[in-house]
């Protein structure tokens, strides 16, 4: 059983010092040194807050990672997911030996390399060919290995014509192609891919993802994949690990990991996708409001976590004591800081006439939500003619999580409320 385990991480922790390194560096070093010669433990290892970006801590020291444990079996594709600043990149940095852990250990049975560190160490004055050798050697290949794959690398890059030209004459796209060609021909036992570091155009992104699929599927190699793109994680990974505030809170199959991640990223609703209201004595009332998400292939999910690009359905359950003739329902979507974003009013879309006193469910499907990742609140109002008969301010919320909506492998970023489907082209003037 343990023979399959290619990578074993035990009690891995990493402590960082916050603020500017400088003041007090010497005094802390001295304290450490004194503790060491007296045979005591490092005094600064005992303190430290957990890694929570949003809350203000008391300690100068923070644990970017705390007691991470996991095993990776040979041939497995492990997706590491978590919010920004949860500690994913720190983990990858330690795995790729760029920085050392504070405590704990990593044991590996194979060579580890990162795929998307493209172009590291390119020298502009040197030719493409010379840079292939230099870059390959930096990534851990021997000269012999590179020489045997040189033709393959050159043709994969599609830069044959310029291979003896200095790289400074290359377009940026060509540089990326060449760099990726080198990285793609690495043959490590364990490959680390951090999507956050990915650069380049859509074609390059697709190539990178495609290469990764090849590596894991046909070569049976082990891959550690970090991404915010849940669709990519789902399609590539076999297992997942969820990191939150520097702690590994879940390891298991990828579906469950993603579900838990999406659930946890919704702080608004405690994981529920509906609210119920107490019965009142009135002729009309809303008893329940429910949100469902519908993904791009039409699957429904009882969740108020919505991937960008997904549709949502809002259901308003109503109890009627009397009959109403002309009922209007409105849904108002607001951002978490109070900006009113959209009003979806039934009477602008459809006339809903009913006369008998029955229980109804108003169902609104919002096709183009176009919202950027974040938390949103929904206000429900029901009116008869022009009189509001029921209003529930900010009664339910939903969470939009990042997704590759343009199909480019890149995720729209920025502090904006909405995104728009758009086209870009470049024409000669």
């Amino acid at each position, binding site marked *: 059983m343990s023979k399959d385990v290619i990578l074993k991480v035990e009690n891995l922790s990493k402590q960082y010092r916050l603020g500017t390194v400088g003041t007090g560096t010497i005094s802390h070093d001295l304290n450490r040194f004194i503790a060491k010669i007296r045979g005591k433990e490092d005094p600064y290892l005992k303190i430290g807050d957990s890694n929570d970006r949003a809350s203000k801590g008391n300690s100068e020291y923070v644990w970017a990672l705390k007691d991470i444990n996991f095993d990776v079996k040979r041939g497995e594709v492990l997706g590491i997911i978590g919010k920004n600043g949860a500690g994913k990149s720190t983990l990858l940095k330690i795995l790729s*030996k760029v920085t050392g852990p504070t405590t704990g250990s990593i044991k590996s*049975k194979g060579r580890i390399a990162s795929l998307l560190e493209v172009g590291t160490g390119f020298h502009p004055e040197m030719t493409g060919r010379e840079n292939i050798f230099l870059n390959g050697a930096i990534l851990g290949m021997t000269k012999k290995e590179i020489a045997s794959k040189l033709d393959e690398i050159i043709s994969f890059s599609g830069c044959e014509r310029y291979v003896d030209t200095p790289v400074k004459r290359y377009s940026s796209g060509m540089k990326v192609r060449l760099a990726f060609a080198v990285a793609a021909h690495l043959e490590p036992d364990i490959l680390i891919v951090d999507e956050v570091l990915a650069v380049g155009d859509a074609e390059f992104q697709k190539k990178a993802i495609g290469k990764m699929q090849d590596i894991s599927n046909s070569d049976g190699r082990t891959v550690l994949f970090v991404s915010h793109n849940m669709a990519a994680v789902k399609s590539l990974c076999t297992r997942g690990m969820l990191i939150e505030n520097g702690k590994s809170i879940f390891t298991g199959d990828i579906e469950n990991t993603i579900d838990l991640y999406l659930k946890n990223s919704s702080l608004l609703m405690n994981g529920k996708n509906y609210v119920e209201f107490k019965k009142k004595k009135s002729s009309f009332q809303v008893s329940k409001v429910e949100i469902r998400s519908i993904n791009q292939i039409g699957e429904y999910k009882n969740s108020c976590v919505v991937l960008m690009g997904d549709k949502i359905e809002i259901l308003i359950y109503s109890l009627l004591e009397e009959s109403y003739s002309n009922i209007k329902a409105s849904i108002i979507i607001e951002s978490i800081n109070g900006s009113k974003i959209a009003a979806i009013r039934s009477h602008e879309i459809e006339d809903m006439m009913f006369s008998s006193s029955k229980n109804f469910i108003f169902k609104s499907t919002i096709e183009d939500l176009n919202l950027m990742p974040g938390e949103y609140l929904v206000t429900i109002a029901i009116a008869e003619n022009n009189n509001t008969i029921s209003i529930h301010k900010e009664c339910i919320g939903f969470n939009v999580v990042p997704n590759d909506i343009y199909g480019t492998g890149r995720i729209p970023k920025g502090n904006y409320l909405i995104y728009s489907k758009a086209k870009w082209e470049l024409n000669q003037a």
Partner: protein
Amino acid sequence: MNKKDWLFEITPKNNLLDLNLKEVWRYRDLLMLFVKRDVITVYKQTVLGPLWYLIQPLFTSIIFTLVFNNIAGISTGQIPSFLFNLAGVTSWNYFKECLTATSDTFKKNEAIFGKVYFPRMIMPMSIVISNLLKFGIQLFVFVCFYMYFYLSGYTIAPNIYVFFFPILVLLMGMIGLGLGMIISSMVTKYRDLTFLVSFGVQLLMYISAVMYPLNLMREKLINLENGTDYSWIVDLNPIAHMVEMSRFMLLNEGSVTMFNIIYTVIFTIIIFFLGLLIFNKTEKTFIDTI
């Protein structure tokens, strides 16, 4: 599980003496490619590039000759003052280049070190090796002037010990690398040291017997009348002995004792291994502090 099943292990605490030289050997191709990069790019960047290597020691030697020999009247015996200074400047330059270029290894390569892992030691080692080319060019200039003065009728000849010259160059590279590694490790935390290097190296030159013979220094700094002796300032400096040794080998001029040689060699080896240890300890976590 048997420990030997694992290819490698990453842990916070390492044996201080675990220098990972095996890994450096595995990356020897990278070392040579870095050297090649440095050599190629120097020529590619500018037409005057290699020429600057000639101009710098020549002009320094000319000024030294004017100031120290003509104005201050330092005697260099049989040897033409200019050649005397050129020999000193050439060997001093190799040490200085090795020291200054390696002393900012971590800071200068932060970007690449922050992304990929390879034994960090490769970087300063490649600098010391590629500096050999620069040294070779300067030595060639020295030989040209040597021939010129020889043909103009000066009686100059190398010593039989000139065959040990490569070993001396190796020692100079080692002490430069050792000091450079120590400084670069400390610079990651205490930036103050960068200021110290640029001006410290300048001061060091004056106590390194670059433009005066060691014997003369001893004559002038030991005052028998009032018993003061400042000659230890120079005598304790292994670089002074190295510069003196190089002149002894190339020009058969200078005082070299067995004690000086042993002192210099031991000092160099200690500094070199100390540098390796400190560098090795720093390379694991410097990216967090730099």
